[in-house]
């Protein structure tokens, strides 16, 4: 079970050398090399269980999660949970280091990159606990599918979210442009709204951010045009789709309807406190729906959520996805207690009240209903949006590109090259396709 590497053995020698030099002043140093997991896993019902849980987030999330942990410890006096929380900076660097050394926390908060870890056997198979310790009856199937590979479940959704277009309703009103009907709006509607807003409000105001670099917008665009980014080892789009995509944005750029490249780099939409939507200068940007809390907290303007526009093949949106999962390290000593805590996080009514929507919309329908009485106006916007997205989604679920992070960076680079005029649409798209093919070849090796 413990993941011993060749690397390990050699470095352990160094460690021994060090302790032999008399600098290891703690008595425990010798035991480090022994495998702790095998023996402990066999034992039944341990009386004193210590679990480590890692997550990233804001101060508010830290406070609420700590309160929930305290409640859990009260209910289960034999289990103690050590919290290891931090900001997002370096969270995954640390996690990767810990996994490489076989020292990862028992409970790990994960994002959309869960499959990278599943594919590399870093996470615990939760399937044996589904139905008993972990109850998922009130979960949408799509949320379960997302963390499932080869019929095994690897993560429990902590919060539901969905890609969305975040818009500044106050700006729409100021410009006298009607807020579009999310259920039916198309790319033409999107273009018109953006053009009108920038025209009415004048210099320094823009209808939309330049979303040509936004991977979620790009993939839904492909789906709305009957294509896909990737499925089963193949790219499901061609260069013409890429050219069309960038041409659409270039047209808006020439018309002054979207944020110019320099301004966008200086005020990236994904950095909440730099986003111009908060300052009332840009009306539309891409975001994950649950992020609306962060943006709304920084502005007096009224913000709202819209789905991506529809194309000839319909809306192209995938069914709602998990914003975050709780997963467990494959090397944990206490899988049962881990499962128990996971269930607590998503199904315990008291915990639900404590946690609120600090990780997005609660995944369990029952909990959602119970919470709706106390929901804030922003909660309501988010809940309504998730319902709408569930209703109109047509895509059959997004299959992650094997080198997702590299694809995201490549799209951004291509978009910047075009926006800054460093390359023509045609040559940049050509290069984009070449690099995508190279990655694909690497993945299929």
């Amino acid at each position, binding site marked *: 079970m413990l993941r011993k590497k060749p690397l390990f053995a050699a470095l352990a020698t160094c460690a021994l050398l060090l302790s032999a030099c008399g600098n290891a002043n703690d008595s425990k140093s010798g035991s480090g090399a022994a495998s702790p997991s095998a023996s402990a896993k066999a034992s039944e019902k341990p009386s004193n269980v210590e679990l480590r849980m890692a997550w990233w987030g804001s101060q508010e999330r830290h406070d609420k999660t700590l309160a929930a942990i305290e409640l859990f410890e009260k209910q289960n006096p034999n289990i103690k949970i050590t919290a290891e929380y931090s900001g997002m900076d370096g969270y995954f660097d*640390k996690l990767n280091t810990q996994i490489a050394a076989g020292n990862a926390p028992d409970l790990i908060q994960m994002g959309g990159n869960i499959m990278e870890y599943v594919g590399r056997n870093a996470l615990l198979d939760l399937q044996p606990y589904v139905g008993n310790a972990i109850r998922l009856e009130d979960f949408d199937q799509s949320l379960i599918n997302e963390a499932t590979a080869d019929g095994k479940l690897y993560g429990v959704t902590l919060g539901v979210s969905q890609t969305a277009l975040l818009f500044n309703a106050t700006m729409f009103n100021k410009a006298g442009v009607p807020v579009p009907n999310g259920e039916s709006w198309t790319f033409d509607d999107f273009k018109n709204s953006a053009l009108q807003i920038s025209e009415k409000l004048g210099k320094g105001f823009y209808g939309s951010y330049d979303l040509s670099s936004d991977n979620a917008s790009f993939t839904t665009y492909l789906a709305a045009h009957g294509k896909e980014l990737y499925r089963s080892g193949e790219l499901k789009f061609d260069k013409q789709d890429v050219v069309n995509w960038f041409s659409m944005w270039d047209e808006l750029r020439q018309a002054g309807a979207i944020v110019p490249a320099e301004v966008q780099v200086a005020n990236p939409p994904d950095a909440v*406190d730099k986003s111009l939507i908060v300052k009332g200068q840009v009306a539309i940007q891409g975001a994950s729906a649950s992020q609306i809390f962060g943006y709304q907290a920084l502005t007096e303007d009224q913000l709202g959520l819209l789905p991506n526009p529809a194309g000839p093949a319909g809306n192209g949106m995938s069914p709602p996805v998990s914003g975050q999962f709780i997963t467990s390290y494959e090397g944990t000593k206490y899988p049962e207690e881990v499962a128990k805590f996971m269930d607590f996080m998503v199904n315990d009514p008291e915990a639900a009240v404590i946690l609120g929507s600090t990780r997005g919309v609660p995944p369990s329908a029952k909990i959602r209903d119970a919470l709706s009485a106390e929901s804030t106006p922003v909660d309501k916007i988010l809940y309504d949006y998730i319902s709408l997205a569930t209703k109109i989604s047509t895509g059959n679920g997004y299959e992650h590109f094997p080198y997702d992070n590299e694809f995201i960076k490549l799209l951004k680079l291509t978009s910047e090259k075009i926006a800054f005029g460093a390359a023509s649409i045609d040559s940049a798209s050509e290069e984009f396709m070449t690099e995508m093919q190279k990655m694909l070849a690497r993945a299929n090796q």
Partner: protein
Amino acid sequence: MTIPKNVKNGLLHLLILALGALMLYPVLWLISSSFKPTTMIFTDKNLWPSSFTLEHYKSGWSGLRNIQFGNFFVNSIMLCVIAVFGVVLSSSMAAFAFARIDFPLKKLWFALMLGTIMLPGHVTLIPQYIIFHELDWVDTFLPLTVPKFFAEAFYVFLIVQFIRGIPKELDESAKIDGAGWFMLFFRIILPLCTPALVTAAIFTFLGTWDDFFGQLIYLSDIKKFTVPLGLRLFLDSSGNSNWGAVFAMSVLSIVPSLLIFFAGQRYFTQGIATSGLKG
């Protein structure tokens, strides 16, 4: 040469201050922002805040559940003090060996030592973590302090350069007086390269104070968190960053380094008189 001395000095002061103002502007902006109400931080461009608040200092200092920011300061200062002691002692020893003593393979060791700082730390991070994990030192202060007692190349090189600036006749006369290597090191060389030692101490303090990545990787328990880790707790990529608190605590976090610098700098201002020893 007809310019009166006080006019020349006045011009010098003016030049230094003008340049200094340029250097300081961003820092003054930081300090001013830490006193501005949240809504004004990014909108009010004036350096002098039109309304003052101490809110960020309060929320930064005690706004975290179960822990006060003061704890982070205590941990950071402790780490830094140990590091300074370890680095200065071990590095000056190694430097003395390289600069003054002849022994086989000296050049090889020196080249290897410099080589160690030419490899980017990101690729040795994980192997190093594995070693510390095997020693069961993870989530203790040991990985961040023990290595400091094994000399750091940067400081060894620095001190070597300074020791080599000290005339060798001093050694010879000391040896004639019957001093051994240890006497020579502690009684003659160390006092004479005080500026270098103080420099090394200040840099070590700062470097340790600032070492976000190392501390992030090795420390997990919030009770062991240091100032850089504490500051990151106010930031969240998905929203709700408390920039006010970040600024306020950043201002406070400069203070210890500033005090150390202030205390240490008189050692640069006094020249070292080597003549007294010679005679």
